[in-house]
């Protein structure tokens, strides 16, 4: 079973998301802020990270930057789920290893799962 790490600070969202993911047959772990997320993935390397940008304790970019520095982490596929989505940021994220950027209001959970599927099956 593939492991998905959700790094998201909004409870409602990560709850809904993880529910959907579990239904979709994925193993889900949740971290509520950037640092916690990094610690978590270091301990247990996920198959994919669903990463929010605006979070306390290291934002999404910082997380990605850190991941890039770590050999073990830098190749983990990342899908950004955020409510911002300016091209500057998207580009930056893509340069840091993000495979996709999904704006929460434009993508419902199901669609998110589809994207995940696309990435890792």
């Amino acid at each position, binding site marked *: 079973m593939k492991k998905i790490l959700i790094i998201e600070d909004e409870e409602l969202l990560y709850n809904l998301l993880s529910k959907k993911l579990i239904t979709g047959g994925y193993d889900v772990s949740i971290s509520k802020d950037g640092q916690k997320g990094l610690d978590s993935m270091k301990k247990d390397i996920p198959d994919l990270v669903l990463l929010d*940008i*605006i979070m306390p304790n290291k934002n999404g970019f910082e997380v990605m930057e850190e991941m890039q520095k770590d050999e073990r982490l830098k190749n983990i596929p990342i899908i950004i789920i955020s409510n911002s989505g300016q091209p500057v940021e998207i580009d930056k994220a893509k340069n840091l290893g993000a495979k996709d950027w999904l704006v929460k209001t434009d993508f419902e959970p199901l669609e998110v799962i589809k994207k995940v599927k696309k990435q890792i099956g």
Partner: protein
Amino acid sequence: MDDKKRTENLLKMTMEDLEELERYIEELSSFLPLAVCTINPSGVVLVVNSAFQNLTGYREVEIIGEKVDSLFLNKKDFQNLIESKTLKEKTILTRRMTLSKKEGGKIPVNMAISIRRNKEGNFLGHFIALSDISEFEKLKQGLEEKVKERTKNLEEQTQEITQSRVALMNILEDVEKAKEESEEERDKTLAIFENFPEGLLFLDQKNRISSINPGLRNFFELDPEKVIGEKIAELEKESPLNFLVDILGTTSAGAYKKELELKENLILEISTIPVMRVKGKIGTLVILRNITREKTVERLKTEFVSISAHQLRTPLSAVKWTLKMILDGDLGKISEEQHEFFLKTYKSNERMIRLVNDLLNVTRIEEGRFLYNVKSQNIIKIAQEVINSCSVLAKRKKIALKFQEPKSKIPKVKIDTEKINIVIQNLIDNAIRYTKNNGKINISVKYLKDQKNILVSVKDTGIGIPKNQEKRIFKRFFRGVEAIKMETMGTGLGLFIAKNIVEAHGGKIWFESVENKGTTFYFTIPIASATISK
């Protein structure tokens, strides 16, 4: 010797003397080149010399005994002269007279006249000397005429010169005026140049630094002396103006813009503009704008938008996801009635999301003057992506979404991918929205070679756009009456944004529509985009 003989001898001697005297007088008289005559108190000619005879044309026998005034044209004049007091006082009086020659000719003569008196002082008559001054007068007249002619010529020349001078003065005045005006202009220009709040640099045709303004020195430490006249290529390595080298190659092309970060707090935007005159390019104007603040503002705006987006969207996404999961039954079974209510709420929320999206886009499009990240792209790929993402929606309404790719390979276009994405998305969204179930939507991409454009069209079999609303289609917040009736979630911003994006790329957007039959939207993107990169 007796008396008679003596007397005879004496007489003989006297006669001989007399003869000698007479001969002398005769000789003298003949020699005298001056015409002389003796007149008696009555004015009768007594004696004339040969010169006199030659001059007057009269022989001795003809003139002796005649009145001398018959020789002159103006007899009265002569008479007055003879009687004048001045003559009596002076020894000689001269007067110009006109002589009537025997054969009729009249010649000017200079007459000298003097009174003769015997040893007792009695008046004996006059001596008159005449000299022919006709030659002299002819010469004089000739000279006078020449002088007159010369004077006339000179006057004419003077007049010409005066006229030329006047004309020249006028020209000079005009030139002065033009000079003043040009100086004024130049002063104005100079004033503008000097006072321009940004940095200005003027390069001549040979890319030498011709002038710099004070504004430039706000950015760089410059010694004008070292810099002016220098060719850019030959600037010192340490020269702060070295960045100009990069733009050298671009000065011949059209306007050019580039950002230059000097320090953290100093970001400049360099624009180069070729300065043209009738005779061709005379130089390049380089403008350096301090856009640090602008960039900061932009960054802040971006951040603001980012944060606003986030702030606005967070609740929206939360509602969206929750409602979706409810509607999907992921959070438990719900009744039909509940489903209906939740669905309405969901749709309303979706509208809100769209509005926020559009507002965020508009803000960005409006305040961002440039397109972001213009890259050469294959527009087909982008179109395909959008179509794919819309397929779900289309399928729900059972609308057939077809993509008509061009037969041959088309060139890439320089576009802002995300933005063009928005445009195509918007058009297809509209097509889907305003087409009833079981309709057809055809998307095509064509390469118009002679116009050097890519043409994208989205054709639907929808409700169409009424004639009276055509003009307002691209306006902000406009929604067609029928469109509203369909209760779809349009914000009225979509086409407005799409138009801005297309036009920012240098393209055009338009449509053709027949009510209740369908609408086709077209837009073009030029191959060689004239857009400016950021």
